[in-house]
C-alpha cells in the first residue's frame, strides 16, 4: 500500500510539472498576442474618466461599419448568449453609441479603427469628430464664471470624459508592430464574416485592461496608484540679462506643446498643437536673424511652450502662478523629499530659480499661436482673437497690418460678434491680470478645428501647411519685431522672415519622423519616428522628447555662442562647457532657456510624505492611473454545443476512471494481498 501511494505521489508530481510545460508550450497554439493601444483611466478631483476592465474580458470579433449597424446590433447578433467584441470605425466612437452597444449586455470590448493603411485618411472619415467637450477646458479658463460662454467646439461629443467599464483598443497601422496587429485582427474578423458568425469555430479576442486607480485623484494619489498628468514646459528669451526690475516690458510669444485624444499612444495633433508650436519655432528663428539683436530692444521677448495644456492649462497656470507669487525657498536640512539632483531649492523643489527673473507685472502682451496648419479651413486667412478690443486693439492692428496677401490676418470680431478668446494659454495670463494685451492667432474663426483633440488630427498636407505657417510666422515675426521696439509701423528688415524650409522640416520632424536630420543636428536619436504628443505623467526633473527638442531649438536660436578666438567653443557634452552654459549643436551656448514644471494647479507636492496631494479641487487635478500591462490576444472558440459535448465527455471520463480505479484497487487487494 505504501509503495502504491508513493508511486501515485511521484506520478502526480510528474503530472504537475508536465501540466506547466504543456501550458507554456501550448500557449502559442492557442493565443496570438498583439501590440496594443488602449484607452486608459484618468482621474480628477471628482471622479474618473476613460476605460478599464476589472476582470479579463473576451468575445467573438464582430464588425459594425455604420451607425445603423450599431443601432441594430442587438437584433443582428446571431446568438443571444455569446459575448462579442465589436470592430468599429473610430468615427463612431461616441458616448451614445457605446451606451447603445452596452445596453445589449452582449458587448465585451471595442476595437476602434483609426486608419486602415499607413497613410492616414482611410477608411473615409466624418468631416468632424471631436471627443472633447463642447467647451474644452472652459471650467479652468478665463471665462469660467461667465454666464454665457461661447461654445468653441459645437461638434464635441465628450467621449474623453466618459467613464467606461469595457476595454477599448485602437488599431492604426503606423509602424511594423501596429501593422501586424491590424492585419491579425482584420484577417480574423474577415474569417468570422465568411463564417457568417455562425459556423464555428470562430475567432475571438481576449482583453486585459486592469487599472489600479479608483474613485478620484485624491484617493489614488494617496495610495500611490496614479501620477499627475503633466511634463515640462520650456521658456526661452534672447535677453540674457532679463531681470525682474529692469523696467522693460515683456512680450510673451506662446504655443502649446501637447495634445490630447482618446488613445494617448496615438495622440499626434497636427492642427492642435504641432502647427502652433512650429509657428512659434519659426518666429524665434526669424527674430534671431534680426540685424540689430532683439536683446537690445526696449522690450523683452519671452517664448513659452506650455505642456499639459490639454489638461486644464496645467503648464501655463503653473507658470503664471510661479512667476506672479514671490518665491521663497525654504531649504531644509535633514529629510529631503525633493527628487531633483542638484536642485536650486529643495522646497519648493525646483531645478533653477531663473523664472523669478520674469516679473509678471512687466508682461505687456501675449501673442499665442493656436491651430494654424490650414488643414481644413475654408478660407486661406488667419484670424486674430482678442479678449478685449480696447486693451488689445493696437496689438491687433499691428498684426492685421502685417498680414500677407493670401494669408491675411483678420480680426475675429470683424463680423460684429465678439467671441473672446478660444481655448488658449493666454487665458491663464489674463486670469491673473486682465489688462494684459493678448492675441490668439488661428486658422479657425467661429469654431475649433473639426478634429480637435481627436486621433483623426493626424493628416498633414506638408506643402499647404508649411506655406501657411511660414507666411503667418513671417507676419507675426515682423509684428513682434515692431512691437518689441514700441513701433506701430515701419520697415522691418528683410532678414526677419520665416524660413519655409525650416517650417517644412519642423512639421515633418514633429509629426512623422522624430529621427529627422534637423533633430540629429542637436542630438542623436534612433528609431523614433512618430512620437506621442500626449504630455504623459509628471516627474521631477523629467523631460519628454518634445521638451528636449524645444529646449535645444530655442536655446540654439536665442542663446549666445562663446567664442574661442574666432570660432565658437566646441563641445561634445555639457561637461566640456563652463558653468551655466549648455552644449547645443556642438558649441557652448549661454542662454536663458529653461524647463518649467507643468502639472495641474490643483495638485501639490507634499514635502513631508513625498507624495502628491490634491490641494485645490476647483483647479485642474488630472492624474493617470497605474496599470497592469494591457493585453489583446486572438484565439479560436468552438460552438457552445461543442463545448457542452466536451464537458460531458470529460465528466463521463472522470467518473469512469474513478470507478475503474476503485474496482482495480479492490481486485488488486484481493489477488495480491499486499499491505
Amino acid at each position, binding site marked *: 500500500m505504501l509503495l502504491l501511494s508513493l508511486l501515485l505521489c511521484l506520478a502526480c508530481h510528474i503530472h504537475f510539472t508536465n501540466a506547466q510545460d504543456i501550458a507554456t508550450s501550448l500557449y502559442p497554439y492557442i493565443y496570438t498576442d498583439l501590440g496594443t493601444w488602449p484607452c486608459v483611466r484618468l482621474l480628477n478631483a471628482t471622479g474618473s474618466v476613460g476605460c*478599464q476592465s*476589472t476582470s479579463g474580458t473576451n468575445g467573438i470579433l464582430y464588425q459594425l461599419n455604420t451607425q445603423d449597424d450599431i443601432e441594430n446590433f442587438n437584433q443582428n447578433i446571431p446568438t443571444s448568449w455569446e459575448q462579442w467584441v465589436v470592430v468599429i470605425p473610430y468615427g463612431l466612437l461616441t458616448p451614445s453609441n457605446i451606451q447603445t452597444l452596452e445596453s445589449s449586455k452582449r458587448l465585451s470590448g471595442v476595437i476602434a479603427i483609426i486608419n486602415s493603411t499607413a497613410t492616414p485618411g482611410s477608411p473615409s472619415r466624418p468631416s468632424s469628430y471631436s471627443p472633447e467637450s463642447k467647451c474644452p477646458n472652459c471650467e479652468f479658463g478665463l471665462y469660467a464664471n461667465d454666464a454665457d460662454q461661447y461654445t468653441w467646439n459645437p461638434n464635441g461629443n465628450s467621449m474623453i470624459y466618459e467613464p467606461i467599464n469595457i476595454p477599448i483598443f485602437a488599431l492604426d497601422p503606423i509602424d511594423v508592430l501596429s501593422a501586424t496587429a491590424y492585419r491579425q485582427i482584420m484577417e480574423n474578423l474577415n474569417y468570422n464574416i465568411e463564417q457568417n458568425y455562425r459556423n464555428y469555430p470562430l475567432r475571438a479576442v481576449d482583453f486585459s485592461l*486592469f*487599472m*489600479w*486607480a*479608483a*474613485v478620484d485623484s*485624491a*484617493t489614488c494619489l*494617496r*495610495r500611490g*496608484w496614479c501620477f499627475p498628468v503633466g511634463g515640462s514646459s520650456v521658456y526661452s528669451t534672447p535677453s540674457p540679462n532679463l531681470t525682474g526690475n529692469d523696467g522693460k516690458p515683456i512680450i510673451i510669444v506662446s504655443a502649446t506643446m501637447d495634445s490630447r485624444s482618446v488613445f494617448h499612444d496615438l495622440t499626434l495633433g497636427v492642427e492642435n498643437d504641432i502647427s502652433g508650436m512650429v509657428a512659434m519655432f519659426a518666429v524665434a528663428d526669424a527674430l534671431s536673424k534680426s540685424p540689430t539683436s532683439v536683446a537690445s530692444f526696449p522690450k523683452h521677448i519671452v517664448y513659452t511652450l506650455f505642456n499639459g495644456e490639454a489638461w486644464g492649462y496645467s503648464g501655463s497656470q503653473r507658470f503664471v502662478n510661479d512667476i506672479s507669487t514671490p518665491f521663497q525657498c525654504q531649504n531644509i536640512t535633514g529629510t529631503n523629499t525633493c527628487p531633483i539632483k542638484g536642485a536650486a531649492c529643495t522646497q519648493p523643489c525646483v531645478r533653477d530659480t531663473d523664472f523669478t527673473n520674469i516679473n509678471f507685472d512687466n508682461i505687456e502682451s501675449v501673442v499665442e499661436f493656436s491651430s494654424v496648419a490650414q488643414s481644413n479651413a475654408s478660407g486661406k486667412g488667419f484670424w486674430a482673437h482678442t479678449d478685449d478690443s480696447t486693451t488689445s486693439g493696437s496689438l491687433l492692428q499691428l498684426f492685421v497690418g502685417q498680414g500677407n496677401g493670401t494669408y491675411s490676418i483678420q480680426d475675429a470680431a470683424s463680423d460684429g460678434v465678439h467671441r473672446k478668446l478660444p481655448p488658449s494659454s493666454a487665458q491663464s495670463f489674463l486670469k491673473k491680470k486682465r489688462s494684459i494685451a493678448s492675441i490668439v492667432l488661428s486658422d479657425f474663426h467661429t469654431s475649433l478645428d473639426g478634429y480637435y483633440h481627436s486621433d483623426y488630427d493626424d493628416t498633414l498636407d506638408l506643402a499647404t501647411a508649411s506655406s501657411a505657417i511660414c507666411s503667418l510666422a513671417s507676419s507675426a515675426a515682423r509684428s513682434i519685431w515692431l512691437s518689441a521696439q514700441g513701433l506701430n509701423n515701419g520697415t522691418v528688415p528683410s532678414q526677419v522672415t520665416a524660413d519655409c524650409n525650416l517650417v517644412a522640416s519642423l512639421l515633418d520632424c514633429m509629426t512623422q519622423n522624430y529621427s529627422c536630420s534637423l533633430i540629429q543636428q542637436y542630438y542623436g536619436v534612433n528609431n523614433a519616428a512618430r512620437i506621442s504628443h500626449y504630455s504623459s505623467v509628471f516627474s521631477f526633473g523629467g523631460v519628454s522628447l518634445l521638451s528636449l527638442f524645444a529646449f535645444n531649438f530655442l536655446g540654439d536660436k536665442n542663446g549666445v555662442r562663446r567664442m574661442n578666438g574666432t570660432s565658437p567653443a566646441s563641445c561634445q557634452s555639457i561637461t566640456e562647457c563652463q558653468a551655466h552654459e549648455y552644449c547645443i549643436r556642438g558649441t557652448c551656448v549661454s542662454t536663458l532657456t529653461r524647463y518649467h514644471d507643468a502639472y495641474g494647479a490643483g495638485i501639490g507636492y507634499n514635502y513631508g510624505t513625498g507624495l502628491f496631494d490634491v490641494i485645490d479641487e476647483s483647479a485642474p487635478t488630472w492624474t493617470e492611473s497605474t496599470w497592469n500591462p494591457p493585453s489583446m490576444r486572438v484565439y479560436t472558440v468552438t460552438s457552445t454545443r461543442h463545448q457542452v459535448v466536451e464537458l460531458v465527455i470529460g465528466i463521463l471520463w472522470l467518473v469512469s476512471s474513478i470507478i475503474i480505479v476503485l474496482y482495480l484497487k479492490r481486485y488488486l487487494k484481493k489477488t495480491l494481498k499486499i499491505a
Partner: protein
Amino acid sequence: MPSLDKMSGTEILSVGKKMFYGGFAFLPLLWLVNVIYLWPTLKRTDVPAQLRRYLIYSILGCLAWFIITTTWYALFVNKRVTWGATADRITVVIPKGV
C-alpha cells in the same frame, strides 16, 4: 483531560463555567465550542441545572459576536470607498481598481 463520560457533573459544570468566562477574552469560538462540546451532557441527571444557563449565555454571546462582526464586515465592504483615507488607514491590503 479525561473524556466527558468519566467526569462528574460538578466537574463538567466547572469546565462549562471556565469556558464561558474565557469567552469574554474576545473568544466567541470558545463559546461555540463550549456549547457544542457540553450540550449533550445536559441529558445527564448528575449535571447541575446551572450548566444549561451557562451554555445558553454562551450561545447568546456567540450570536452577538456573529451579528457584530457580520454587520461590521458588511458595512466595511460597502462603505470602505466612501470613508476615504480613514478606511485606507485601517485596511491591511487595499484592493486595486475599486
